[in-house]
């Protein structure tokens, strides 16, 4: 076995591009393949040390870690962007299942009123109609 094979690498990560929680998420994925050590300054520069547990190519491991960070950063951004719509869907589902929930929680009632207002403001011409209906 070649003893000169590089087994570890230190990544310097800009926290403005990759927030700490994104780095944690990527690190968790690699815990079974590498020894992960975090250091540095979470405000300025985060240092991630990766040491392969096996004879895995460290450059490949590094590339996969960077890809994983992009993956989680994108997931986080999308979650943030779709937060309102997910909450709306959940509220709708809860309200449909049990309309009395609005009576129990005044805050919920206000939210439903807001949703109804949004519903009324939608122009019916903008709603996509099924093909069959268009032909009639």
């Amino acid at each position, binding site marked *: 076995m070649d003893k000169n094979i590089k087994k570890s690498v230190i990544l310097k990560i800009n926290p403005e591009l990759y927030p700490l929680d994104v780095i944690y998420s990527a690190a*968790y994925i690699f815990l079974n393949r590498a*020894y992960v*050590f*975090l*250091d540095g*300054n*979470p405000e300025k520069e985060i240092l991630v040390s990766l040491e392969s547990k096996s004879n895995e190519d460290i450059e490949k491991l590094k590339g996969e870690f960077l890809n994983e960070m992009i993956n989680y950063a994108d997931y986080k951004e999308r979650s943030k962007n779709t937060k309102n719509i997910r909450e709306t869907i959940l509220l709708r589902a809860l309200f449909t299942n049990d309309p009395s929930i609005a009576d129990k929680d005044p805050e919920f009632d206000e939210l439903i009123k807001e949703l109804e207002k949004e519903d009324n403001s939608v122009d019916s011409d903008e709603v996509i109609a099924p093909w069959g209906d268009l032909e009639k």
Partner: protein
Amino acid sequence: MKIILNKQFYSIEAIEETLNDFKDVCDGRILNDKIEVEIFPKEEVRQLKEEFCNYVLGLMKNKNLI
């Protein structure tokens, strides 16, 4: 052997829990608020320091387990 963990990345609770979970393998204590951890291996374990750090990170993921 000593492990210095940056308190901005590692939680004290997770380290304490790790020390407890590793008690069959090593004794240890937290030396100061910089989170300097000293561990005394009871037997020879390969890459004990690295395994310790990984375990702390793993516990931080599963905060509910702590």
